[in-house]
């Protein structure tokens, strides 16, 4: 039993070290690592991976549209958000498949928009539920690497294609001065 505990501690430490030592100098690696972290089933490892990705005061918001034009919105610090999401991971395993991405950036900030195909698999019945999401990440480049400062996701509703979220409107503002 002691051996098993020791092995688990070692595995957990290895995961934590590997998350901390990962090279996050490219936006691509950070975005992919974020999806990996979201899919991580082990709660402690997931927290470690997210902690390595987010800024200290990083935020998350989630918008879950229902089919009656209403939505449930949660927002706040990423730590509080994930502390409240353990029941989801108890019942489901989760996977994310990014299908499209666009990035705007200047200097030390970047704004990432992705379309993500998310699959939830019920652990008991193995039943699968899939949904397309608009995922937004605001990143900041500090100490030679990118951090996530804000993550937000929005699900598709009432057959209104969420792909529309990626399409942008450009508005020119007439300057008064």
């Amino acid at each position, binding site marked *: 039993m002691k051996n098993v505990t020791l092995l688990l501690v070692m595995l957990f430490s290895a995961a934590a070290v590997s998350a901390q030592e990962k090279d996050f100098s490219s936006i691509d690696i950070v975005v992919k690592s974020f999806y990996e972290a979201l899919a991580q089933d082990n709660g402690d490892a997931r927290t470690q991976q997210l902690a390595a990705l987010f800024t200290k005061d990083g935020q998350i918001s989630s918008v879950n549209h229902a089919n009656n034009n209403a939505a449930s919105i949660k927002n706040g610090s990423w730590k509080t958000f994930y502390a409240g999401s353990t029941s989801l991971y108890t019942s489901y395993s989760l996977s994310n498949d990014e299908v499209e991405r666009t990035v705007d950036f200047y200097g030390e900030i970047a704004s990432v*928009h992705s379309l993500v195909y998310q699959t939830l698999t019920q652990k008991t019945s193995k039943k699968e539920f899939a949904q397309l999401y608009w995922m937004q990440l605001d990143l900041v480049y500090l100490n030679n690497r990118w951090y996530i400062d804000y993550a937000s996701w929005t699900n598709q509703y009432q057959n209104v294609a969420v792909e529309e979220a990626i399409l*942008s409107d450009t508005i020119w503002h007439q300057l008064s001065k």
Partner: protein
Amino acid sequence: MNSMKKQIKLSATLLLSVLMATAQTEQKSAVDVVDQYFEQLSAQSEFLTTLFTPEAGISTVVYDSNGIATQVKYARESYLKELQRTGEYYNFIQEPVVLIDRSYGYSTSIYTSVFMQFVSKDGTDTLKSKSVQSFKLLFIDGNWRIDHLSIQNEIPGTKLDDYLWPDELTASLSKVNPVSAPEPIVSLYDENKIYSITEVDEKPVYPGKSSELSQLLKKYNADNTGENGSPFLILISEDGGASLYYVNDLSGEQIKRAQALTEAMMPWYPALKNKASVKCKLKLTIQ
């Protein structure tokens, strides 16, 4: 007594209906809220905080004397205090220039370039600058509110992309700048500067037929139309040599291919500025 109560009740109901109707007609879009934010900045009143969610974070990037970037993050109340502190010394305005708006359901993202002007209270000093700001808004309790704002002020020598700072909108700004230096009679070029293709008189040209460049790009799954794949920049130096300049978020494999592509290029005819060869960056994309 009863009829009086009824009348009061009726008046209250009517008043409530009028208020609700007014609130509905005044419901603002996410873009309106961002406009309102910029309008309210110069007043620095408590109203500004109501445009944010209570959980909102405002992130700005600042640099120390060695050029090292750090993040300063504010809650909405501390952000207002910071603005009020600036307001003690300067009258300032900020105006959005180009807004890139993405929206779906109860969520909106606005990525915008911003013109900023600070005038010292005694009127002796005027500072004009630019920034790029990323707004994330949520539709909560019937109103759009800013949940996150990320601000990057202009970095000297790093130009904003042309689509964020179009000449058609911004040409007048340099004309009214009282502290801008007069145009030199003889235009010069900066030998250390890396120009974008919009700043040079002659763009770099790849030798041979135009199909030769297309074929070379195709071989490495790259493109110069700006439409397919992930963007990256190459640098064409004064002697026409091509090198990888900025790889953005390319994967390791894409970087290798982009590197191989620049190495396979023949020397270009370099860009010209005031009849002199200058360094110039070109945007390509790669699959």
